């Protein structure tokens, strides 16, 4: 779809919303968020890096963007319809128009419902990474102001009691998830069965999924309130044949010295686990700490091969080999894992509604394997009922070989969110 058609589609859906008038008409709710922001990124573009001359990641140094995020919900006794169109435009004349959510729910009776459409399906108990979720492996969640791209789902829910939910879920199409297109992963339908069970002081759940190419996943998660100050949680997964790009020596046609593939080394079981707890002070300030062991994460041999690929990039000058070499770098960046090393400590301090106006969070992630770290902050300041200023800061710490710092040095984002 060209940019003009994209704009017409967006304006059409936006005008339908505005035609309703007011935020609450019988059975209809709507809301519009207008988000202008500027984002400055300092990234590494050297030869022999992951992103030589920025031709792989195509990051923007200084981006001035406008995101329009309307949302519409119609609800009656049997049907719920929701539409969240998105329009994004920036100073590089990149225009994207799509639906973050376009979903219809049909309530068969009090105990069953069927859902069809485009949306993000979140599962799990962790704040930072959800190894239990077989559907979303995007790395977008580093910045809370950027939405995860949705996929197309069919979901059937059965609620035998108020404490128990059993669901069937299938991703029918890749939707907006760019990771499922060449040269990254092939999109395969994934069929899942999961349950959520609530206990008086917590919640547990598990999901089993199998894909068209027999990729299988058993995810589990749970949370428990220990006292008025402490909450604990765990989450984990057992994966067989996951989507994961790893580096190997040699190339099937001997064009390159190395290749990055989603191959037979993934035909085994990988165990990932995460444990976390939070502690709240009486003031409401809350500390979160998590330890994450990523069974699919890369070992020293994998990292040595990846470094060899980066070092050999400038050896390939001909079109075909250069394209393949760049494809390899793209696959290292999008390996299929948000945190691609084996062991991490995540921590966060949060205070919400400070002076009734501000939300503040400070995050520190530390990789126990390569000793790299990431410091990030989020500050939201409500100037009025309709206007919020925000800033997101991200600073990677460590040498250039560490996973956190191999692409981006630091990033700052400043913007406002205007809500109607």
């Amino acid at each position: 779809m060209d940019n003009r058609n994209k704009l017409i589609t967006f304006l059409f859906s936006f005008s339908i919303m505005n035609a309703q008038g007011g935020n609450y008409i019988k059975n209809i709710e709507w809301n519009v968020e207008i988000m202008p922001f500027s984002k400055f990124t300092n990234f590494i573009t050297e030869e022999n890096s992951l992103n030589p001359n920025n031709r792989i990641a195509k990051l923007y140094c200084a981006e001035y963007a406008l995101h329009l995020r309307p949302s519409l919900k119609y609800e009656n006794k049997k049907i719920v319809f929701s539409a969240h169109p998105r329009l994004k435009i920036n100073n590089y004349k990149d225009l994207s128009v799509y639906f973050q959510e376009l979903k219809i729910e049909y309530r068969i009776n009090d105990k069953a419902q069927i859902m069809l459409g485009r949306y993000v399906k979140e599962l799990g108990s962790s704040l930072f990474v959800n190894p239990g979720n077989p559907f979303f492996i995007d790395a977008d969640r580093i910045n809370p102001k950027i939405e995860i791209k949705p996929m197309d789902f069919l979901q059937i829910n059965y609620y035998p009691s108020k404490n128990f939910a059993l669901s069937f879920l299938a991703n029918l199409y890749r939707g907006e998830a760019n990771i499922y297109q060449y040269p990254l992963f092939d999109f395969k339908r994934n069929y899942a069965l999961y349950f959520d069970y609530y206990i008086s002081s917590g919640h547990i759940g598990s999901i089993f999924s199998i894909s068209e190419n027999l990729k299988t996943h058993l995810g589990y998660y749970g949370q428990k309130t220990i006292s008025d100050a402490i909450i604990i949680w765990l989450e984990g997964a057992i994966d067989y044949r996951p989507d994961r790009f790893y580096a190997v020596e040699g190339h099937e046609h001997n064009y390159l010295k190395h290749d990055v593939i989603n191959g037979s080394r993934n035909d085994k079981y990988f165990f990932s686990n995460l444990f976390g707890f939070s502690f709240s002070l009486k003031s409401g300030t809350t500390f979160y700490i998590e330890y994450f062991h990523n069974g699919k994460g890369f070992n020293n041999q994998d990292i040595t091969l990846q470094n060899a690929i980066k070092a050999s990039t400038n050896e390939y000058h001909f079109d075909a080999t250069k394209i393949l070499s760049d494809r390899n770098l793209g696959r290292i960046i999008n390996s299929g894992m948000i945190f691609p090393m084996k062991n991490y400590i995540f921590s966060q301090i949060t205070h919400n509604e400070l002076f009734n106006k501000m939300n503040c969070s400070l995050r520190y992630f530390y990789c126990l394997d390569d000793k790299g770290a990431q410091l990030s902050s989020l500050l939201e300041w409500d100037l009025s009922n309709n206007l919020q200023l925000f800033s997101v800061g991200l600073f990677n710490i460590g040498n250039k070989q560490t996973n956190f710092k191999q692409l981006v040095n630091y990033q700052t984002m400043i913007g406002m969110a205007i809500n109607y």
Partner: protein
Amino acid sequence: MKNITVIILFLFSHISMAQNIDEKFKEILRESDFYRGSQISGISWILHVQNFKDKKQENELLIHVEVSTLNNKQFALITFLSPSNSIGKKMLLRDQNLFFMKKGLRQPILISGRQRLSGAAANADITSCNYYADYEIIEVKEAKYDGSDYWVFNLRANNNQASYYNIIYWIDKDKHQAKKAEFYGKSGKQIKTALFRYNNPVKYKSEDYNFISQICIFDNLRESHYTILDLRDIKFEEFGNSKFLKENLN
């Protein structure tokens, strides 16, 4: 031997009488919860929250509250309707668990009792307090307040996730409606005081009742702060099993 039998019989009768008294007060507590919207299988209302500092209104919120109480289990779904920057905020209370969702969060998070007591969540929490299930009666005294006779309940949390450790609760002897509540933390420090008004005539199961219409909450830790909660549009409705699940917060 006869004397011992008499003593044992006396003791048993006393225990039985104490149990009856205990049951009576539990029933009064349950009834007072009912007038505040608890102990009902399905009820909803609109809550207008006004926060004041030094008698000046700081902010106001409009919240939709849906509650279901089954035996000792309580579920509440709290949806923020206005102002604009609150749209998308939702809270789900399931017994001692409180899940919170807002724009920017990927999924609902479980928040602690202490987080619950700070910020906007705190006062909405008071409206859906289930004293009958979450507190045990330590002592009941009689007192006069504004010329009427009251039972003064001393309540203590029966689980470590309850928002307030201790509540002194004034219940009208005739109407069994709560007039006043004093909320205390574990240290014994008074945190809040709430005054309740009943001016919402409703029909429930063919009977006429006067339900809660206003709660004034005074912050004892920050004396110039107080909150007025007005309840309106009370409706009795049955909710499906999916209503009070975490998934509904998205």
